[in-house]
């Protein structure tokens, strides 16, 4: 028997596909089930937590932030005393984390580039030393490195009365590192203004130089002029302000030093550990980035008659940076996240302050949530910035 077209059409219309064979319906079922499981687990945890909190009579919410903290913090960028609120204590912690992360990132990038370039050196000794540096520091847990440096600072450095005095006004002891700074004077305000002015002029000059180069092909010596500006303008401001030379030198007062600037052994150990550990990874990234640019690029640039510094800045670096930046971002984020290990050696970073807060108030959930939110914020901001930079540097294809 021959099936007619009408019959086939009729069958496809009437014969429904069972829903477990229909991909679209099945997809909906899967997703509903997944969401239901997640919500069920979430609700289970939530209700258990509610019951437990009620049983232990722990108040929920962030009301505790307005209460008096009652603990002192050793290092702070803003005024803080034990009588201030928890919110302010946590802010001190955030600022400490930010300062460690910022200084750490800057130092790490410098050291990482240095070691990465050294790894590629034609000098056997230099490249082997760099290789040893990378292998050793990458393969030891960062926390162990922090403990190691902290114990060195703590055990090996003398007490304040027998401080090392490597240069006039510089004192090193197991309470911290003390440096002299210029005593405050209105002239320094003008120096700051001059620096800002130099920065502004640099930005404008760079834009003008680029437009001129696009139009006429003439290259303006932007680097030398701008670095000159950065030296000369503040110097003129300093002279005009009366050329103050008074220094605020640290001096022994009772059992400890006062005056000057100082940072603690905890801060030094944290910074040193983080920078050494992360720079080993950055060095590997830099090495890989430079190796990713084929030697033909250098040869082509040289055959165009470019000088060797221009070969580096115009040809090699722009291409190498494209390879380097994405993994570099994640290393910078790692450094920021690893700065939370400060809690182990007693530097008052955000996690450390939050931990003290949790222990004092019993507000475990709020404390942990705050820690997570703050670090998520750092992560998102850094990756947003790096994505923007990456997009700017990325290969523009036709």
């Amino acid at each position, binding site marked *: 028997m021959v099936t007619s077209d009408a019959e086939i059409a009729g069958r496809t219309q009437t014969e429904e596909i069972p829903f477990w064979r229909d991909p679209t319906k099945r*997809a909906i079922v899967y997703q509903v089930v997944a969401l239901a499981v997640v919500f069920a687990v979430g609700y289970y945890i939530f209700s258990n937590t509610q019951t437990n*909190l009620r049983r232990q009579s722990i108040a929920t919410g962030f009301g505790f932030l307005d209460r008096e903290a009652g603990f002192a913090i050793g290092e702070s960028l803003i005024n803080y005393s034990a009588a201030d609120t928890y919110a302010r204590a946590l802010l001190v912690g955030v600022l400490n984390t930010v300062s460690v992360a910022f200084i750490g990132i800057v130092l790490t990038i410098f050291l990482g580039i240095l070691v990465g370039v050294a790894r590629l050196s034609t000098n056997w000794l230099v490249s082997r030393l760099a290789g040893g540096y990378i292998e050793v520091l990458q393969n030891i847990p960062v926390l162990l490195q922090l403990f190691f440096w902290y114990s060195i600072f703590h055990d090996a450095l003398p007490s304040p009365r027998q401080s090392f005095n490597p240069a006039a006004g510089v004192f090193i002891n197991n309470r911290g590192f003390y440096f002299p700074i210029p005593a405050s004077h209105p002239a320094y305000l003008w120096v700051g203004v001059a620096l800002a002015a130099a920065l502004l002029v640099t930005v404008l000059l760079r834009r003008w130089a680029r437009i001129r180069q696009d139009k006429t092909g003439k290259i303006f010596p932007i680097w030398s002029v701008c670095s000159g500006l950065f030296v000369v303008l503040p110097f003129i401001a300093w002279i005009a302000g009366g050329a103050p030379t008074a220094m605020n030198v640290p001096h022994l007062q009772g059992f400890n030093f006062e005056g000057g600037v100082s940072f603690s052994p905890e801060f030094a150990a944290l910074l040193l550990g983080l920078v050494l550990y992360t720079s080993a990874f950055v060095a590997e990234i830099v090495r890989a980035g430079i190796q990713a640019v084929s030697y033909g690029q250098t040869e082509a640039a040289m055959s165009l008659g470019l000088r060797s510094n221009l070969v580096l800045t115009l040809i090699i670096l722009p291409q190498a940076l494209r390879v380097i930046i994405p993994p570099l971002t994640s290393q910078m984020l790692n450094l920021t996240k690893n700065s939370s290990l400060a809690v182990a050696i007693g530097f008052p970073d955000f996690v450390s302050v939050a931990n003290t807060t949790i222990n004092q108030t019993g507000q475990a959930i709020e404390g942990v949530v705050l820690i997570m939110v703050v670090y998520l914020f750092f992560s998102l901001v850094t990756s947003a910035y790096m994505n923007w930079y990456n997009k700017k540097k990325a290969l523009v294809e036709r």
Partner: protein
Amino acid sequence: MEDSAGLTKTADLKPPVTNVGVIGWLKQNLFNSPLNSLLTLFILFCLYKTIPPFVQWAFLKSVWYTDGTQCKLADGACWSVVTKNVRFILFGFYPYEQQWRPAVALILLIGFLLYTRERRHWNRRLIIAWPVGLAVMGLIMHGGFFGLPVVETTKWSGICLTLLLSIFGLTVAYPLGVVLALGRQSRLPAIKTLSVVYIELIRGVPLISLLFMASVMFPLFLPEGITIDKILRAQVAIILFTAAYIAEVVRGGLQAISRGQYEAAESLGLDYYLKMRLIILPQALKIVIPPTVSILISAFKDTSLVVIIGLFDLLKTTQVTLSNPEWTGFSAEAYLFISLLYFAGCFSMSNFSRRLENELQT
């Protein structure tokens, strides 16, 4: 033909003496430009200034098998802090007379690792042997048979805890990570969103915040009366953390598989599960073996963070030793010793991963 004849002729000529041998090597590798010569001399000077004092401290003037009071009189390193406490540093609170058991388990583990290093040993039997081997190690340490007294996991400390947390953590995190990676690549929006949120959330926060969560929040999550011990809680945190990183590594592998493979599998009529199990995952997971070893290395290093929530891993047992008044002040020696242990573990793993990367590059 003429070219090759010419080549053999030039090959007969001996190179100048200054280009071969020790002098040639020195000239090429250490003194090939004025700047490099200066650098070489500078580094040699620095090494001369640092290496001999270090050797003096670490070997010539060091003491090895004394007690703490004699150590304080010594000029050099006090390695006694390691030799006298090595069993506590390695095995922690595991009962002293029973410490041969973790030692046996450790040797078994090292044997397994050495055997697995060779790629020609990789087969189906090895995949079964691993869980069995790990279970045997666990049983030896836990005891309760053949007259071996039971040692609760709360007593497992030192290197056993470090290895337990990292190896068990990775074993459980691996399947979870694969599922998350598949979820992230899924076409179903709800599942994709859940996976992305989980992965990014975990990767955005430090491990220490998860460990805090495990130690202070997990007890609140459970119904009244149920408690889980501290080690297990930390283990859960490590698993949740590692899974997110594995997921990203596996995603890289999944993205590296060409579309043709997916389409070919679909055109054969394989459903999603079969397509993934038979076609995609075997290829993707093979690509990501080297980065997975890197994850194992970081997991191994990251377990040291459990010190902060008060578990007695290798680092903590060392600190306990150092807090003994007899041995305070010798932290450099003790930390150098465990650095060496960590370094040996991580360095051999990373070498293995590098070798594998070369071998798998076909």
